[in-house]
């Protein structure tokens, strides 16, 4: 009789102690996405009135993306006074896509990389500085967390 009680106690405590949780690689057992990863590469410092090259490095599933579906760059100044229309970036191999640009004036700028490949669509926005910031731009930076709300045409 004692052995039965002990056995039962053993099983019960086993079940209670083994309170398990989802394992970290459980996600591998289900449908997986292959999100595009974009790394923006800017020359530093950037200055106005000279031609510079902005680059984006695309990776997917840990590998550089060759011949991506599309990679478009869009650049605008924070106060929307300057806009460079969306342009296709040139592929130079090893997942690197680039565009030459000549900034008209100093200020706070944004680059949005529109990219898509094998079902994954991304559009990260990169905030960057050309030359010196104006007082006003400095103030707006201090105002709070930067968001893409400055992006034109998003409101609907």
């Amino acid at each position, binding site marked *: 009789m004692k052995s039965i009680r002990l056995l039962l106690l053993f099983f*019960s405590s086993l079940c209670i102690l083994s309170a398990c949780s*989802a394992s970290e690689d459980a996600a591998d057992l289900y449908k997986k996405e292959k999100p595009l990863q974009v790394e923006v590469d800017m020359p530093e410092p950037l200055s106005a009135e000279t031609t510079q090259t902005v680059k984006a490095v695309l990776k997917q599933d840990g590998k550089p993306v060759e011949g991506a579906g599309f990679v478009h760059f869009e650049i605008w100044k924070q106060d929307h006074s300057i806009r460079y229309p969306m342009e296709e970036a040139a592929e130079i191999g090893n997942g690197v896509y680039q565009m030459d640009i000549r900034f008209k004036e100093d200020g706070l700028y944004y680059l949005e990389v529109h990219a898509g490949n094998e079902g994954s669509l991304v559009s990260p926005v990169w905030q960057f500085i050309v030359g010196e910031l104006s007082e006003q731009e400095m103030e707006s*930076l*201090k105002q709070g967390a930067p968001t893409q709300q400055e992006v034109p045409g998003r409101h609907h």
Partner: protein
Amino acid sequence: MEENKEQKGISGAQKSSKNNQLHKTIWRWHFYAGIIFAPILVLLAVTGSIYLFKAEIENVLYADYYQVEPQGEQVSVSAQLEEVQALYPGAIVTKYRPGEDEARSNEVTVSSNGESLTVFMDPYTGKSVGELKDDDRIMDKIEEIHGELMTGKIGDRIVELAACWTIVLMATGFFLWFPKKRKGFGGVLFPRFGKGRKILRRDLHAVPAFWLTGGLLFLVMTGLPWSGFWGNNFQAIITNSGEGYPPSVWIGDAPSSDIETQEIAEVPWAAETLDVPLSSVQGLIPMPIDKVVEIADQQGIYPGYSIFIPQEQDGVYTLSVFPPKAQDEATMHIDQYSGAVLADYRYDNYGIIGKIVAWGITLHKGSQFGLVNQLISLIICLGVIFTVFTGIYLWWKRKPKKGSGAPKAPAIFKTKPFLALMIVLGILFPLVGLSILIVWLVDWAIIQRVPAVKRWLNA
């Protein structure tokens, strides 16, 4: 006691005494489990009956908050969130739920001074139409009673214990109900009205209980995946096996953004004097929620979804929707900087057990098949209440003046089939196992040693 009379009828000398012992043991367990868990069962059935109609009830209660007049253009989502932020300074916006149709308000959930509340926004005016504190939501209270007796973790375990013991009640009840010899369907499938009150009393408990068993077992089994102990372990096991819900749908973490921290633009206000290197403000900036709504619409997420807003730099936007039908469920994680879909789990991506559990849950809630589903569940709930009351009435009428009226207890080990059943249930439902151990301990330490208690309990 007609049970005993029935037993005597079978009498086959030796065999009957063994059967009798088994019968008594089972009866005793059924008796105690019934008396102890009856109040909780009634509570669960009552709250469950109400909760079945949650959507209908809330549509009436909160009609003023829900309904808006469609007119012209909608204000952008981020502008609506800014408005909420202005109304509740210092509050954290945690969730946004776009209305499922044109005439439905949007919901913004904020956490303010340690309490969570929902602000209902008219998307056409961009203004709030009202707020509702989580603590004031009556259906949430009902759900809290149903799930955890409003006492958190302890209540959750008690409800789970009651649910597991309901299985024991059904198993033992089934044995007691099971016809001992062929003599027609009276007292088995329908109550015998013409055989006296005692028989009718027994039949009014045992016969409806039999008819309910299938439905109640279904409700218990589909409710258990919610429970804190059995449910969590069950979910973990099936998720890890690849056959359950994908991680983060029920348990497990959402993927985190794979963006490196140094790539994220810093906010200079952290340093008042702006002595931080200016280059640190260069980097990725978070995506506005408007874009998340666009992605949700492009991806065909079922209307009525919620967007959970990331609170950390490496957090993600999580879209989730658990609509009336299991097939429409979706959970999606979106990178807050790039808008990349990091994970997209639909019903079709659940493992086979995950799909069964998902169906179980929508059936349990009564939403899968609409009104028919609600009515069947309601009948089961009402049946449970009826069975509990007839059970208690049965005991009350049979109870002798002195003592509890429990059948005499033979040692459980003398009835091997029953012991085996209890061991199996104790392993499948560890809380049952644990509570049996406690019962034994109490029996050994108190009941068997205090004569008055022993006599009253007929132990």
